């Protein structure tokens, strides 16, 4: 499609870049960062520590999600191949 027909915030971005649908998982990263910034923003009194603390929290969530994904995949593999 042409750029002229695209209306930002109205038309979905994959209409302009159809390949985006294959990389949807990457959109989790900005979401996690925003969650960490807001959460730490409510908890920290000294906001100078916010960037570092938010980065650490983002990384922690990512690690936990990765571990959960591996565990769930293992359970799925076990249930489908072994049981």
């Amino acid at each position, binding site marked *: 499609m042409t750029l002229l027909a695209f209306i930002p915030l*109205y038309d979905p971005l*994959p209409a302009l870049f159809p390949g985006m649908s294959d990389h949807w998982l990457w959109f989790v990263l900005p979401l996690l960062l925003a969650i960490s910034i807001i959460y730490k923003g409510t908890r920290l009194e000294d906001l100078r520590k916010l960037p570092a603390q938010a980065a650490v929290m983002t990384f922690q969530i990512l690690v936990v999600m990765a571990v959960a994904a591996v565990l769930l995949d293992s359970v799925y593999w076990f249930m489908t191949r072994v049981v």
Partner: protein
Amino acid sequence: MTQPPRDASRPVSPENEGPTAVGFLALVLAWLVPGLGHMLIGQRARGLIFFATLHLLFAGGMLIGGIRAINPPEQAIWTYTQMLTGWPMLIANRVEQGASAELAKEQNTYNQARPPLVPGQGPNGDPLTPAQERAGEKVLQKRRIDYATGMFAKYPLLTYHPKVQDIGAVYCGIAGMLNLLVMFDVLLRITGSTRELPPGKRAAFDGGDSAAPARPAPARPASPAATGTGAA
């Protein structure tokens, strides 16, 4: 005994009478404009961070998923959470109502005008041979694909990318839930409350960087319920 003059800009009154009018206004504005509540109670830097992050998150969701990320069909939970975002959702919701009608109209146009998939009869009304039928199907399929491609180029709103548009809905919904957290933070600040922590974590927070215990809480007279001296 003379009482100190009441400072209207302070969210918590010096007499410990609870939140002032400014405090209540901050709570409402915290919903309407994410981050504004903190700015109003004097937490400007914090409010700016919340303002920028939540607006960017909501705008990001709409940029990714388009207007169809708002009020996703058959997923009402996201509509409720998106409503917590305040003014961005109020406007987006209005635009979405109009877009739904436009989408239905375009969908109807598309459905009516697209070429059929089943080939008709031969030129003389004779039934088609299987070979003719197969050839006809291929031609019709190509015509249909060309028609759909042209329609999607002309009306991008018709394109549907489930995973990406779900991500858009999630972005806007999470922005609303995070704004709820921000509103609770305003509530804690205007009431001078502190978060309760397990005893084991108290020391860590006292020496750490948590806002909650370090936040100066106004001295309040202990309530009968808290001290256990109330009438049974």
